[in-house]
């Protein structure tokens, strides 16, 4: 019971001194001026950190997707790169090495290279492409 009385006394006193020091007229004037300045501030409320974070995440996802897509499309014609990036060619079998050399001997067609799809690839090339992507 004594604790509750003390708690109530503290609650009654809490913030009273700070509130008393508030200059009511100045605060009222400032609020009215800010309201007058009005809609501009309101229109910025959507630009809060949460929204900015969401926008940034969306840009990253979309941008990342576009870059990945571009890389895949560009690699597709010469996709018979047998050895995935970072792998040593000593790990390749004779058959794989031969295939890689065949691909490297082929002339690189610049025109339309970016437009080529995976339709023109052989089963072997597609497999190699998949390995590269998984690698």
């Amino acid at each position: 019971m004594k604790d509750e009385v003390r708690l109530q006394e503290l609650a009654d006193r809490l913030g009273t001194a700070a509130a008393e020091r508030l200059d009511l007229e100045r605060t009222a004037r400032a609020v009215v001026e800010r309201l007058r300045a009005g809609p501009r501030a309101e229109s910025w409320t959507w630009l809060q950190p949460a929204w900015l974070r969401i926008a940034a995440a969306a840009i990253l996802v979309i941008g990342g997707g576009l870059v990945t897509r571009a890389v895949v499309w560009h690699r597709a014609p010469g996709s018979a790169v047998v050895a995935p990036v970072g792998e040593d060619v000593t790990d390749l079998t004779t058959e794989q090495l031969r295939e890689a050399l065949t691909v490297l001997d082929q002339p690189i067609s610049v025109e339309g290279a970016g437009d080529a799809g995976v339709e023109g690839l052989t089963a072997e090339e597609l497999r190699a492409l998949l390995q590269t992507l998984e690698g």
Partner: protein
Amino acid sequence: MPQAEPVAAPVSDAALIAAWQGGDEQAAAELVRRHARVLARFLSGAGALEADLDDLVQDTFIRAFRSVGKFRGQCQFRTWLLTIGGNVLKDAARRAKRAKLVPLEHELQATDGDPHERAVAGEAEGRMQECLRRLPRLQREVFLLRAQQGLEYQEIAAALGTTPGAARVHYHHAVKRLKEHLR
């Protein structure tokens, strides 16, 4: 003998809100004068630094006036204002990410009373604020609305979008933890 002028009845909050919506800036100023101190007390109790108090009070009123169309009279305007104050404080704390305690020296700025008593009172208040800050937000706000503002559970529940029973439970949890801390 000259007759005394009749005392004008105080204008209700609802009338002032309607006047503000009709473009009367003085109505808005009157609402600020009427409720700013209570709001400041609530914010201070909820952990606002005194240095931030004026800005927080202003931000709360701005937010309230701009969304006053959403106020349906489910509770008093003042209670609704306090809940907006709670949201403003939460947003500010998230931005600042720093401790929200009223430093003791602010309490000592008061010049009345015995300095020792003031220091002891300031310490107890500081401890209570520290404990309040550690409570879950709903418990803290229910406690302040009940113990500091003297509101009924019905009114608190309407403002916070909960039931009177739940508000009562939150209050009792808060009291229990505050008692433990202040013992």
